[in-house]
């Protein structure tokens, strides 16, 4: 199978950053900058429930697996699914060591409540693409669990959704190969960004350093 080498894999979770702000993604994944803020700490807290790799449960027709590492060679991404529910389904696929046929449904844990933008969805879709490739099956349904409402939201995924995520991932690889940190597009989202002070979004609107120096010297 053609595709990316493992060392060129990007982190799947990055797609959420990338959709939120390309510069934020580049600061985290290219420049390796990270600052905690209330939101990132909440995020880590929410994941403590899901992040229990040794917990494997069977409930009725369901096999629940936590912290499942996944990847896609085709898309060059790797990551961890918080929870994957394998549900008995005559249309499903066989799993080594299990009887019956199953279909996998990823469940991604998120802080807060459902968001207007597409970033959580796209991360879930990327997980589904990985599961499809690794398990040789086709998926069209996953879940986002939001900590604030303590509820999961069903996410149906169309072929065009998947195509959009593939295009985004191509773009991420393109930036990554060039090691390029794009300039910021300042917006309301900057207020909630944990990297606000590393990024210095206001800097992009400001006059040049040359004119700053000249005017100070002239005072």
């Amino acid at each position, binding site marked *: 199978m053609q595709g990316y080498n493992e060392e060129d894999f990007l982190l799947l979770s990055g797609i959420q950053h990338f959709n939120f702000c390309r510069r934020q993604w580049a600061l985290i994944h*290219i*420049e*390796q*900058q990270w*600052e905690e803020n209330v939101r990132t700490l909440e995020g880590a807290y929410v994941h403590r429930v899901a992040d229990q790799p040794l917990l494997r449960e069977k409930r009725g027709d369901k096999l629940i697996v936590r912290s499942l590492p996944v990847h896609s060679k085709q898309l060059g991404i790797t990551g961890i699914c918080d929870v994957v529910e394998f549900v008995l389904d005559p249309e499903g696929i066989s799993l080594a060591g299990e009887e019956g046929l199953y279909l996998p449904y990823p469940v991604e844990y998120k802080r807060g409540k459902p968001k207007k933008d597409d970033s959580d969805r796209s991360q879930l879709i990327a997980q589904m693409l990985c599961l499809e490739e690794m398990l040789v099956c086709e998926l069209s349904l996953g879940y986002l669990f939001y900590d604030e409402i303590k509820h999961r939201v069903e996410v149906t995924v169309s072929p065009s959704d998947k195509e959009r995520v593939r295009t985004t991932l191509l773009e991420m690889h393109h930036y990554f190969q060039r*090691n390029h*940190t794009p*300039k910021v597009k300042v917006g309301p989202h900057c207020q909630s960004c944990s990297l606000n*002070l*590393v990024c*210095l979004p*206001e*800097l*992009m609107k*400001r006059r*040049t*350093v*040359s004119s*700053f*120096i000249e005017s*100070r*010297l002239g*005072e």
Partner: protein
Amino acid sequence: MKKLLNTLFVTIPDAYLSLDGENIVVKSEEETLARYPLHNLEAVCTFGYAGVSPALMGACATRNIALTFMTRNGRFLARVIGEDRGNVVLRKEQYRISDDERRSALVARNMILGKIFNSKWILERATRDYPLRVDVDRIKRVTASLSDAMKLVRNVEDLEVLRGLEGTSAVQYNSVFDDLILQQKEHFSFNGRSKRPPLDHVNALLSFAYTLLATDVKAALEAVGLDAYVGFLHRDRPGRASLALDMMEELRGVYADRMVLSLINKKIINHKGFYMKENGAVLMDDETRKQVLKAWQERKQEKIIHPFLHEKISWGLVPYAQALLLARYIRGDLDEYPPFLWK
């Protein structure tokens, strides 16, 4: 801008620091003296010699808390760094600039510009605040020549020329620095800089203040992912944090010199807090060192408007802001490195 958190200075000689959950615990002879939550701390600076537990070192490194060891006399000993922060792309570009004398000069000249600008305004301020106490004409002659030097520095593209201009400006500034000491003249006078060892009270204070500033600047450079040991004006020398020294140029005056002057002029410290060794080396006693640390901490909490960012930040965050701006320049977001031009 990020928040300035506290620095914990541990001056008890036999203090041992360890980790308990999310807290740092200070012990002396098995007795717990204090405990502080780590999330309130930005730096820990210990003058003791009993040590720090590996667990606490790790906790500081992962939380980006600068942990520094000093000798009893306030000289830098060592510091704990965790995994490198930042990325190789930024650092490699820093190395490329450092390897290229002309590109180095373009960054270094702005740092020196900052140094001369700040020196000039320290002097100008004295002529405005104390016209009856200082020799205004003498100082004005110096500030005029500093202004001329700045015009030249602005166009320099050669490191040697830049070093020359920096040197003569420093001589000019030092020649009137003593004029700024307005109190306790009989015990505190400045007759040129002596470092190894400091030979008078003023030099002992300056050396200590510069050491404190150096640890802050080094930590700030590393926090943004730069290599504090690869400089532009200061060339590579094993064990020397050249980039930190570069960046200190623009901060020494406004940050350290002014604090030393106010300690003397406000009589917060006096000559009894110093002692002289047989060879003329002047050292501070523990109480004086504590006073300096206290003043240093208070000063770091004071708020200013950053001249370039126009953001209200504490003095203590200035090294971090400058390090961040330098990283942004190296990554190509800014047309020049904006030095800290304070007045």
